């Protein structure tokens, strides 16, 4: 699929938004402003962005504990997300979910998920609904390399294949599940190798490369929309921060992240490609960056100023009717 200037600018804005969102949370967390467990997506922006560029409001995604990038790429409101992460009443989940449970069903974002492997079955269901209701929608399930070994994920590959569901499994292989290497935990060379055992195409791409991710996803989404069933896409990528904020990361090689940041950063690479090809001007990128930063500043300020939930909120939202 040819990317227009507008597409590229949108992609850039999304990647930059995710990056700055996470960089800012990293600082706010260290300052003790953010409660709970926070898993940052910095470094993996090209994946969520490249995938979600193909999706519209008919389409659904399921996410993981590391969900901020997926949310932003799927169109969740930045202010609402920030407020949620700060536990405020105007958060996307009224302060009841927090970082690990941000959702916006109206945007087709079925929720970050605190359960590794929680998402893939749900994505099968969203895809089934699209199929039965004839919406033309697809479902995408983001799963980590750790989550790729969870039985729920493996079962879902099978289910999606036998029902020929419009479902795409995106394995975000960032090399680690917490402090454990994907090579130790996963018996396979590439996770994409597992696809053939479930009768679906599997492809491995460089998750630092927005263009590569965008291309293979385009193919998979077309396949799905045409009724030709699921695809497994493995994106090899890196996370820039610890498993969660507070992780000392002694299991990583010295300078591992530094080297990647310097040589393979998805945003820097995108900037280079987009400007050198003449598609986007450096000034446009700078302008976008400025806007993004301002938006994040604003979101954080609003989130900090926002009201906390009140006692009465504890008991609401358990049931629609009880």
């Amino acid at each position, binding site marked *: 699929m040819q990317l227009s200037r507008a597409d590229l600018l949108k992609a850039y804005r999304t990647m930059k938004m995710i990056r700055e969102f996470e960089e800012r949370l990293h600082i706010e967390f260290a300052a003790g402003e953010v409660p709970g467990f926070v898993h940052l997506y910095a470094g993996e922006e090209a994946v969520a962005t490249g995938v979600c560029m193909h999706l519209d409001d008919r389409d659904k995604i399921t996410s993981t504990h590391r969900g901020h990038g997926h949310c932003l790429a799927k169109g969740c409101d930045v202010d609402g997300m920030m407020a949620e992460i700060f536990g405020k009443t105007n958060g996307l989940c009224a302060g009841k*979910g927090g970082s690990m449970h941000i959702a916006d069903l109206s945007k087709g974002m079925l929720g970050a998920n605190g359960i590794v492997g929680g998402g893939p079955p749900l994505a099968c269901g969203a895809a089934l609904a699209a199929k039965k209701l004839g919406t033309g929608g697809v479902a995408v399930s983001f799963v980590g390399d750790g989550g790729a070994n969870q039985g729920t994920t493996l079962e879902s590959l099978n289910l999606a294949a036998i*029902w020929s569901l419009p479902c795409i499994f995106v394995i975000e292989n960032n090399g680690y599940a917490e402090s454990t290497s994907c090579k130790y935990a996963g018996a396979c060379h590439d996770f994409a190798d597992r696809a053939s055992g479930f009768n679906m195409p599997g492809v491995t791409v460089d998750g630092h490369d927005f263009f590569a991710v965008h291309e293979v996803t385009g193919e998979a989404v077309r396949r799905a929309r045409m009724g030709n069933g699921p695809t497994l896409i493995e994106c090899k990528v890196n996370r820039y921060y610890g498993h969660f904020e507070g992780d000392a990361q002694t299991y990583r090689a010295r300078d591992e992240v530094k080297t990647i940041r310097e040589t393979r950063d998805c945003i820097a690479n995108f900037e280079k490609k987009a400007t050198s090809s003449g598609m986007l001007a450096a000034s446009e990128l700078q302008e976008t960056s400025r806007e993004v930063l301002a938006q994040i500043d604003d979101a954080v300020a609003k989130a900090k100023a926002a009201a906390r939930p009140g006692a009465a909120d504890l008991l609401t939202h358990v049931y629609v009717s009880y």
Partner: protein
Amino acid sequence: MSRQISLQQAVNEALAQEMERDKTVIVMGEDVAGGSGTQGEMDAWGGPLGITKGLWSKFGDRVMDTPISESAFVGAAVGAAVSGLRPVVELMFVDFMGVCFDQILNQAAKFRYMFGGKAVTPLVVRTMYGAGLRAAAQHSQCLYPMFTHVPGLKCVVPSTPYDAKGLLIQAIRDNDPVIFFEHKLLYSIRGEVPEEPYTIPFGEANFVREGSDATIVALGRMVHLASDAAQALAQEGIDCEVIDLRTTSPLDEDSVLESVEKTGRLVVVDEASPRCNIATDIAALAGQKAFASLKAPMAMVTAPHTPVPFSDVLEDQYIPDAKRVAAAVRDTMRYKA
């Protein structure tokens, strides 16, 4: 005389009528049709006991056989429920919850709350429970106490064909996730059931029998034992009130409390194993909110704290029976402070 059908037929009819009424209702589970991909007949099974048989013939691919991948297909039902369908998914035996519980416990049950009230998850999980088929430890459990424990779930345990139909239709129309427990030994019992669709609201217990001496609270198959016991006791001049909870969550606290306030005596009959079960739940409720009325210790008639045995001798002993219920009531009556 009005129409008598079995509980099995009542369940099947409820499913068929709701599928007829609402195109978004789908049915899925292992062998719910049966015959998928084979060279023989389709709609060959309707589950191992034939409960859903005929639905595929009426509704075609809205009735979907699944692989033996409960996490994936129960989870798919959850995902479909938040995406515009109203799935009725069958977890063949509730004993199998252990391979898919996460999708119920952490996904379906919690979406609405975690997402700040923005999710609606109109899901029904139908499942078989209970002992009596000589099916041994992994196919005979009740386990509804575990589901009742989980905020966000509704739990329905019908005892009659009439209730099964009305409660199942309510479950399908309900916008919260509902776990619907069907006792294997009740499928063949027959009772009066109107042909037209109707609903029975959740959280409204049924006074199966009014009485003034003692309250027997029961659910599911145990309601019948309670009634039998009450009938036997009536001949001894002991007048029991029998309450069928119908749903354990929501719980009709008021009916239980009212009755206990009237009779002053409580016996709870629960087929589940005895720790942290519905019997303790109801007893604790009375001990907390109807204490002043209590004239005697609460009694609980339950299974023992053992897995369900295979041997018929042992299983018959394992399952509460009307005699034990009657004995518990008599003890309660005999109690002198």
